[in-house]
């Protein structure tokens, strides 16, 4: 079993999403704190505080949107898991939650770097490749082909 033959993680299928979402929220909190207390406004902006900068403000809007989508899709996947619906539908919902939380983490991480000049090290994702989750979802929705060997255990979730 390697990264290419294991498109969906086994055991605790939503723990990766929960972990990413938790990290995304922590990064957002840290970035908010920095901008409120330490960041300097750009000299050309004519503003007293970085927190008044419209471009900084809207950047936070974007991060929050990605986090809320991840949280909503995680909740949706949990509902699938708990309702013991069709195993394929459940595994697709789990894959979608993974993609959303990974995007939230990546967006929060980029915003952190952009707004604080610091970067929290992101873990690599080769062991759990998102690219193949897109393939799994697309192949099911476009072609009706079920995920290979359905390695999801719906009973062990969260």
């Amino acid at each position, binding site marked *: 079993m390697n990264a290419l033959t294991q498109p969906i993680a086994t055991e605790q299928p939503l723990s990766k999403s929960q972990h990413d979402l938790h990290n995304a929220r922590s990064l957002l909190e840290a970035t*908010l704190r920095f901008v409120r207390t330490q960041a300097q406004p750009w000299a050309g902006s004519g503003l007293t505080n970085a*927190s008044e900068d419209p471009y*900084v403000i809207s950047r936070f809007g974007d991060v929050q*949107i990605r986090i*809320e989508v991840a949280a909503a*899709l995680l909740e949706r996947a949990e509902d699938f898991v708990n309702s013991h619906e069709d195993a394929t539908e459940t595994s697709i919902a789990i894959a979608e939650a993974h993609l959303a939380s990974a995007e939230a983490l990546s967006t929060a991480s980029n915003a952190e770097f952009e707004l604080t000049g610091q970067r929290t090290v992101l873990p690599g994702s080769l062991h759990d490749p998102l*690219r193949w989750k897109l393939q799994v979802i697309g192949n099911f929705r*476009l072609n009706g082909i079920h995920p290979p060997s359905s390695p999801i255990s719906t009973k062990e979730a969260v």
Partner: protein
Amino acid sequence: MTASAQPTHTAHVIRSDAEAIAVAHKLAARFAVEASVRDRERRLPVAELDEFSASGLWGITVPKAYGGAGVSYVTVAEVIKIISAADSSLGQIPQNHLGVLDILLQTASEEQKRYYFGKVLKGYRFGNAFSESKSKNAGAFETRIRFNDDSAQIDGEKFYCTGALFAHIVPAVAVNEQNQAFIAFIERDNPGLSVIDSWDGFGQRTTASGGVTLNAVKVPLSAVIPAHKAFDEPTADGPISQIIQAAVDTGIAVGALEETKRYAREARPWIDSGQDHGWQDPFSIAAIGDLEWRVHGTEAILKKAGQAIDAALLDANEDTVAHASVVVAQAKVLSAEIALLASSKLFELAGTRSVLGKYNLDRHWRNARTHTLHDPARWKYHLIGNYLLNGVKPARHAWN
């Protein structure tokens, strides 16, 4: 079309959220059949609208106390999404009607509520004469209302009057000398009211979102409500207007994604793919996967927005209304993004033949681009970020 101030049929009265969703699915299947032809020929959906309002879907937000089903806003958004996935012009037409029903609930007298909610349950449609294309900004009005002893007179010029052409009653926004906004309910055959079918936008073509002129229109005082009160105090009226916009755009995305899958199944394989069929293309497959989760994410946030509105209706205060505005803004950003993405990816995944005129697949993108301009998504990122970073509550108006 001739102006009529009453519906041709008495409407069915829907009794529950579940019934509303079921009726929407049934209607959507019928509306989908000729949606492309109506768009191509700009054939206004007169018969379809009669069927739409006769189904009872235009009355689902009338509160139970007034004989309606008082459905949740989760259901309202779902209904508009379902109809818009089939025909987004039809999905948009009740937009202002539904908004006006909430303003009635918030600001009208008991007698006015009974009267107008009763009309709506019978199948009366409200259009709108709100926006003005020549005023300083979207929230500024030059249309005037002058009150006399037993009547009011309204004079002005309106644009983007979606639904007015098809309405039995046209609610018009006008301001008094103190610049306070009122809504006058003007019967469609009032001699001072002219509805001009001048909408020639490249998208949402059959909404007839044209102009209205109000020339010494006289209405009784009983036909006027103090609409400004819906925004002087915190109410969910702004988020209600907005969630319907987001639901239309989510519907466009859902419809475009379904169409994308249908055509991607039939696409030729790319020469370098080594495959026999386009549907085996690994990059097309992954692109569908990407659209799928983004559509589901948008639908999930749309539902959260409906829940936030329901909470604000139950207990309207500065905080619940601000929260509803913020969540609806998230739904607005996401729905605009995915409607444009899905309707553009359609061509990429279906291949060059999909641009042939005979398929008319560009209607999805034209509709997405047109309808998402209603209010700019760029200011929604700001609204959300300003609440998060600085605790600044969103301004209360019909666009937040």
